[in-house]
């Protein structure tokens, strides 16, 4: 026996080493089915490598930023102009889209749909990778210390990237969507056909499980379907590049990822998602004029005008208007125009938080001149409240607008939204009589997507 072992010594050791590794693999495979714990040995290995990677990335970024931000600034002004023009266009587009979104929310509310929102994200920098064409994964410089946990979605502004696979104290391993073992629930935007997105051996991304008798054309947009419980529904995944026959009765749909997976530098990790039922924002609409008015520069509030209004005591609607006008001319112009027509005013009053503020303002204004309008708006106040709940962006605007309009309106608005600091900004303002705020108090909606720093 000994002579046999001695004769095949090398082979025996080889078999022994291989056996030990196979045993280790078997243990891991069994344990991974029970609970996915990160092994200490991995933490050591990653801890030994990633500090160097992090350091190199910092040096690289520092030198690049120095060059880009201080030396190579050619064409920046022209680019700035273009971007500004683009923002203008996007604001106008936003108006149109917000109407569509409001309509969608109303329909979803009718059906008691639950929506998923990205509530909070953590930006992270890509510092390394698994470094193999056989597995597509990457390391980011945020870990459990930053609130990262396994199975969190990793995205960019362009589209989805992957999911967090393992978490270490200061780094995380992200499995990308073009890895062969990844699986993402996806759907085609136009036809709403759902499938499973997987990586291939070549590092490409394929949408599988779409029946071969379905019509899919190159160029179709692919979105996340939300079925994997990792990526919220509707995030851009990519576009269809090529459609061919796949295994069995399914199509093989080659997808070009929206995010450039080979050149990622910064990503966002979705650390918090919120699921809630859709809330319609009344029947209101945001007008392009409102958005433009808010973006125009404002003049700080003049205490003298407020004092005058206070001494006047009567706090007429006219004086209120003039105060508003002095506070924020452009916005006041809009308000005046609307005051001229009760219908318009009520229409505006439905548009979220801004509406709530304005409607209360009108209530504060005593009688005659536009009394009819006032009473009409009082009735609308509750819907304005609901609008605050529904339209978060509008709720933010309401603080802005009410700050400019000032007076009792502000305090009431602030009380309702629970922001006392803003009320303290206008101590000298007269307490304007208000109708009993039976429905005026807006229940503050728990913060949702506005928490998103992005």
């Amino acid at each position, binding site marked *: 026996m000994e002579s046999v072992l001695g004769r095949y010594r090398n082979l025996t050791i080889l078999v022994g080493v*291989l056996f030990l*590794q196979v045993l*280790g693999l078997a243990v891991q495979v069994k344990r991974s089915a029970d609970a996915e714990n990160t092994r200490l040995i991995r933490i*050591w290995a990653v801890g030994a490598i990633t500090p160097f990677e992090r350091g190199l990335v910092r040096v690289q970024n520092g030198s690049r930023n120095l060059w880009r931000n201080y030396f190579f600034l050619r064409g920046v002004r022209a680019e700035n102009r273009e971007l500004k023009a683009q923002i203008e266009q996007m604001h106008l587009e936003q108006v149109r889209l917000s109407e569509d979104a409001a309509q969608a929310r109303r329909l979803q509310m009718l059906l008691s749909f639950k929506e998923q929102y990205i509530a909070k994200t953590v930006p992270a920098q890509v*510092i*390394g990778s698994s470094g193999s064409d056989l597995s597509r994964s990457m390391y980011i410089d945020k870990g459990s210390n930053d609130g990262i946990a396994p199975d969190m979605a990793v995205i960019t502004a362009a589209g989805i990237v992957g999911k967090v696979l393992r978490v270490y104290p200061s780094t995380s391993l992200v499995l990308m969507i073009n890895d062969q073992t990844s699986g993402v629930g996806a759907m085609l935007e136009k036809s709403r056909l759902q499938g499973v997105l997987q990586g291939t051996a070549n590092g490409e991304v394929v949408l599988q499980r779409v029946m071969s008798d379905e019509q899919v054309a190159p160029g179709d947009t692919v979105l996340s379907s939300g079925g994997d419980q990792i990526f919220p529904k509707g995030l851009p995944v990519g576009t269809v590049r090529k459609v061919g026959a796949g295994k069995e009765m399914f199509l093989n749909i080659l997808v070009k990822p929206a995010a450039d997976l080979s050149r*990622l530098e910064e990503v966002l990790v979705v650390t918090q998602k919120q699921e809630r039922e859709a809330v319609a924002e009344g029947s209101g609409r945001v007008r392009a004029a409102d958005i433009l008015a808010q973006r125009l520069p404002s003049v700080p509030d003049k205490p003298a005008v407020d004092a005058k209004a206070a001494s006047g005591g009567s706090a007429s609607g006219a004086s209120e208007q003039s105060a508003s006008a002095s506070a924020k001319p452009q916005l006041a112009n809009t308000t005046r125009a609307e005051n001229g027509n009760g219908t318009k005013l009520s229409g505006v009053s439905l548009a979220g938080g801004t509406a709530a503020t304005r409607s209360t303002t009108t209530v504060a204004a005593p009688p005659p001149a536009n009394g009819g309008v006032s009473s009409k708006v009082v009735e609308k106040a509750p819907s304005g409240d609901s609008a605050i709940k529904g339209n978060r962006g509008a709720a933010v605007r309401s603080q802005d607008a009410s700050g400019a309009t000032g007076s009792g309106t502000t305090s009431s608005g602030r009380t309702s939204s629970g922001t006392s600091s803003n009320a303290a900004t206008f101590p000298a303002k007269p307490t304007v009589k208000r109708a009993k705020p039976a429905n005026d108090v807006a229940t503050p909606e728990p913060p949702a997507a506005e928490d998103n720093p992005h």
Partner: protein
Amino acid sequence: MPITYTSGEQIEVYRFSIPVTVGVPLLALFLQSFVPRRISYFSYLDLPLLVTIFFSMARRNPISGLFTGAAIGLAQDMLGAYPIGIYGIAKTVVGYLASSLGAKLDVENAGARLLVTLGFYLVHAAVYFTVARGMVNLTLDWSWKVGILAGLANGFVGVGLYFVLDKFKQRT
């Protein structure tokens, strides 16, 4: 003919200093992890495999070769997304075969090194896929086109790398 068959006594056995023995594999692992995020095609190279082949063939000792392969492979596994041991097993086999081959053949010529590296790349891939699909149940697909191209790329890079690493050889 680049590959010459010689007896064990005629083949020179090399050794390496401890800094080279430890530092070169670590540097290969670091580059393999860091560079592909900047140069995506770099992921088709397998520097730890090339280092394994080089050390194993230079030392010409199967036991040393298989332990070198196991250590480098397991370290590579720790940085990857899949269970630890897949690369370990594949590189153990390659290390053993490379050192066994090195004990029989004197492979110093560039052409021979290219062919040997291509061959070992394919062996490595075959073992890797066998273990990954057969034991870990990973749904990995093999592409011959990518495999051959990546093998050739590794072969060419390997020839250059071996030339550099030859400078660190020490005769026993």
